[in-house]
């Protein structure tokens, strides 16, 4: 069955992963800008990274017939340095112009600090000015509840931002309702230990419904599985969910959210 990986950090994955995802039915991968595992030393480091996202990764994906899109930002883990953040924000508009960039992301919070909030607000302002979709990272583990509430309130307080053009990723059982009640999209991340399991994600679909929700692997340089989405689709089948329901969650919903950007055009919808 076809699917879309709406949140995969392919810069940290081998080409074998692209091959495996293509075999599993992946039609498109969307890659938000994130933390490399170390702090970049200047905006030049981000510039090189953004080039990797917009030039090299699409070529790697294309080798296997997969469309590749990306999102731009300075991530929350590197947002304590306001000067660095301002320098990076200054180069983002140039990359937003590229035909395979869908919006601003993955912005958000990490430890819920004042500087992280300042940088988040600067990104939201940029997204409003440039009329971009927004993809949000919510903090890990014990910080997630507080961070989700802060993020949703900040976005809700900016009347220029339409909630339906925002996806709050990495929701779990204690945050999903906060996001959905705010009229924003919710992303469930299938990632070991620190986020959701396939079964918990399917449970949330059964409790909260399949509208305005997607699931993703967020595979990166940590222990993670680039095939988490098709494996969860298989588990959905095991529970007796229809192909139509599974296709809606794994393909239709990502298409619907990202299709709000005129740049999102699938080469192969089959």
């Amino acid at each position, binding site marked *: 069955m076809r699917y879309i990986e709406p949140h995969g950090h392919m810069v940290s994955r081998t080409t074998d992963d692209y091959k495996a995802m293509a075999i599993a039915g992946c039609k498109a991968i969307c890659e938000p800008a994130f933390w490399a595992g170390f702090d970049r030393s200047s905006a030049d480091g981000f510039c090189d990274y953004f080039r990797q996202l917009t030039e090299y990764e699409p070529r790697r994906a294309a080798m296997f017939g997969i469309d590749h899109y990306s999102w731009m930002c300075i991530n929350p883990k590197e947002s*304590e340095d306001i000067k660095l953040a301002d320098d990076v924000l200054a180069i983002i508009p140039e990359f937003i112009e590229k035909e395979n960039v869908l919006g601003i992301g993955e912005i958000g919070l990490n430890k819920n600090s*004042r500087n992280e909030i300042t940088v988040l607000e600067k990104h939201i302002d940029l997204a409003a000015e440039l009329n971009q979709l927004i993809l949000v990272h919510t903090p*890990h*583990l*014990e910080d997630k*509840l*507080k961070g989700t509430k802060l993020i949703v309130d900040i976005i809700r307080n900016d009347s220029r931002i339409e909630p339906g053009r925002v996806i709050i990723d990495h929701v779990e*059982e204690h945050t999903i309702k906060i996001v959905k009640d705010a009229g924003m999209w919710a992303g469930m991340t299938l990632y070991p230990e620190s986020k959701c399991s396939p079964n918990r994600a399917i*449970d949330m679909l059964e409790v909260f419904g399949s509208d305005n929700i997607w699931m993703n692997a967020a595979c990166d340089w940590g222990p993670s599985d680039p095939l988490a989405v098709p494996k969860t689709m298989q588990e959905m089948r*095991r529970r007796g969910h229809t192909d139509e329901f599974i296709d809606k969650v794994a393909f239709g919903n990502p298409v619907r959210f990202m299709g709000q950007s005129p740049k999102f055009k699938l080469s192969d919808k089959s």
Partner: protein
Amino acid sequence: MTKQRILDLYFMDARFKLTEIAAFLDRVDRADGDEDFRIAAFREALKALDSGDPERAKNVLLTFSDPTEEPIPAATTKAACGTWPDRPAD
């Protein structure tokens, strides 16, 4: 799905995970030294499992969560540890 179907699909996996949790607690008990805030929160979270409340997963996550609402002055670490360090001791 019926309860029977859910049990057929997931009982063995849940039994395995429950045994893992029990073994983890045994391991903590056998070890020398002091416990810390993490195991206290873990024991508190376990109460949600037998509560009869239909939102056990949510309640487990809430037990581990920072309930405060004010931003912190500055981030002094990048990582999370799994439970709110400032949770009051029971």
